[in-house]
């Protein structure tokens, strides 16, 4: 039974897309390779309150982008909109992911296509064991890719391996998802799931909040090990300190729902020194 009417869409294979693009503007294709994520003039609101006011952002595979900004600037909203949370209404702009219209996809389809969100507040699922949850997640993805279900032994092996990556006690795997986990365990569990699901675009929503310096280092370590040529990261953070450990390629500053400044990793340090007021002052047109 179909849970809902879902448009029959061919699976995202880059080939037809590339050919189409080649036919249309072969010249352009050779000079501007397709970005992993391309956000153009994105406007979004929740309950009639505008939060994003024209975000532009392009992430290529292999890159780590950081978005910094004061509280309420819309950073987490951007993460939620990209993951497809329903409360947010997109009123204007486009988002292309691997050349496809991302906004057309349901949240689960986005996940299956390789978008992963590490939640700021991971949700508890009482009675649902971590093991069952992850196995289902991995198998859903495999089914989507036309692959066979993961073998039990392979799954266990993968789980042990990846748990080690973020220093997560394997005993937690027998517990219910996030239930009774400490704050630090919940955050590490998010990165562990990231490691298990091997996404193409990983969005970390304030993963550093509530972590002490040791936990922060563990999480950052895990992320660094997961950096890869074909994987993009979007790291949302309020503080610069996470970026001491995960060195970004690009740093964006978001204020009032817009990216107002973009630079290299030094921008984060400058921001830490001068505070967000400095950006605000600069951003406001004279």
């Amino acid at each position, binding site marked *: 039974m179909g849970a809902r009417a879902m448009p029959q869409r061919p699976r995202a294979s880059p080939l037809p897309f590339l050919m189409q693009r080649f036919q249309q503007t072969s010249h352009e294709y050779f000079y501007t390779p397709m970005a992993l994520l391309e956000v153009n003039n994105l406007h979004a609101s929740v309950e009639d309150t505008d939060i994003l006011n024209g975000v532009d952002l392009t992430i290529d595979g292999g890159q780590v982008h950081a978005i910094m900004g004061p509280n309420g600037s819309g950073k987490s909203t951007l993460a939620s909109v990209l*993951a497809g949370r329903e409360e947010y209404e997109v009123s204007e702009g486009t988002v292309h992911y691997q050349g496809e219209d991302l906004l057309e996809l*349901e949240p*689960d389809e986005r996940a299956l296509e390789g978008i992963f969100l590490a939640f700021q507040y991971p949700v508890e699922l009482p*009675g649902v064991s971590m093991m069952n949850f*992850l196995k*289902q997640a991995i198998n*859903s993805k495999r089914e989507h890719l036309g692959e066979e279900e993961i073998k039990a032994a392979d799954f266990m092996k993968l789980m042990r391996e990846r748990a080690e990556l973020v220093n997560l006690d394997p005993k937690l795997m027998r517990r*219910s998802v996030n239930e009774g986990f400490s704050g630090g365990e919940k955050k590490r569990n998010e990165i562990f799931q990231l490691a298990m699901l091997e996404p193409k675009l990983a969005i970390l929503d304030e993963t550093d909040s509530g972590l002490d310096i040791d936990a922060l280092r563990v999480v950052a370590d895990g992320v660094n090990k997961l950096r890869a040529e074909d994987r993009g990261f979007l790291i949302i953070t309020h503080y610069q300190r996470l970026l001491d450990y995960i060195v970004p390629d690009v740093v964006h500053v978001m204020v009032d729902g817009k990216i107002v400044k973009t630079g290299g990793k030094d921008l984060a340090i400058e921001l830490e020194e001068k505070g967000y007021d400095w950006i605000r002052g600069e951003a406001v047109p004279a």
Partner: protein
Amino acid sequence: MSTTQTEYLQDVADADYEHGWTTDIEADTADPGLTEDTVRMISAKKEEPEWLLEWRLKAFRYFKKIMEDSSQYPEWAHLKYVQPNLQEISYYSAPKRKARYDSLDEVDDELLETFERLGIPLQEQKQLAGVAVDAVMDSVSVATTFKEELKEAGVIFCSISEAARDYPELVRKYMGSVIPYTDNYFASLNSCVFSDGSFVYVPKGVRCPMELSTYFRINEQNTGQFERTLIIAEDDAYVSYLEGCTAPQRDESQLHAAVVELVAHDNAEIKYSTIQNWYPGSKEGEGGIYNFVTKRGLCKGDDSKISWTQLETGSSITWKYPSVILKGDRSVGEFYSVAFTKGHQQADTGTKMTHIGDDTKSTIISKGISGGRSNNSYRGLVRVNKNAKNARNFSQCDSMLLGDRCGAHTFPYIEIDNPTAQVEHEATTSKVGDDQLFYCHQRGLNEEEAIKMIVNGFCKEILAKLPMEFAVEARELLAIELEGSVG
């Protein structure tokens, strides 16, 4: 609530009943109506001994007064329905060919096919280690397997009519000893017209070598089904019993009023598990089974234990409170329940734990899941008598709402007459959260997978109490119910 979730739940609510058909077997059906003659006719058809007819008639004389006095009809449950007209019901129906069979070879092929379609392949069950099946189709037992092995262990497992003929002393001694015919409206009705059911006797010191299981199925149009089951465990005996039900689709409501009595002597244990999947009515809320069941266990001996575990997914009306009377010192009563309602289903279910002996202990864990426009109520009584020292009870009632047009209710009653009692009650109500769903979606799970996973997690500790073989079946049933897949 998101649109997709609403759509999904709508699909679930609209799902057709999987087991909806009527088998075409010639049946021997009594004319509708309840009179003394009806009672005599049932007894005669079943070739019952005189004492049993007398017992039925005594019950009928009592019930007649209640039946004619509308103020006697129990209306306290949180249920809305039209009171069934007892004069429009036929009280006896039996497959016509042959009432009793010595082996499966004699059983009508069509009948066997019905069981196959229900997923109860008797032929295979014979080979399935550890499961004996006493299949009841309408009112007469048609096949019993594993008899030899049970006989060797000294366990009696047969239909109650058979038991009344072959073991009259036992039946006479225990029938009505836990639930007298004066107990309540539906138990009285059952006592007059009970059709068939199971009888289990486990002698002293015997651990029943296999799970005992019976499948009930209503088949004839307009036939009330009134099972009566009696299970006795002598000192130091153990038995685990499972009943599972499905019923074919029909237009008119069907009354189902079963009585189940359990007796556990010193240090005996009875585990009674139910998977109930009667026809729940159409999506417009028409038809479906009215399930008014009286189930009670008596922990008669010291250190005895009785556990009720139930997965209730069917019936349009469920009125059911499997209870335990903790008479023996240090006796233990348990009630574990998952009740899932959708569409227009209504369930009012729970338990009664009556503490009489010293140092008795009871545990109640109830999980209600409501979807569609259904109503799901927990109703439970914990009673500690004046002389019951150090009684302990723990109750936990959790409700989960799937959607915003359904209802979940909790009616706990606590009556304590002894100051040494310790009684704990916890209750929670939750809605399958948009946050939980989004979290699952973000990991690639679709609506159906996500809801299944969350609901299964919610009921996990109860399903784990079911016997191994049936826990899988139970999860499957729950998954089917959630999916609403059409068979």
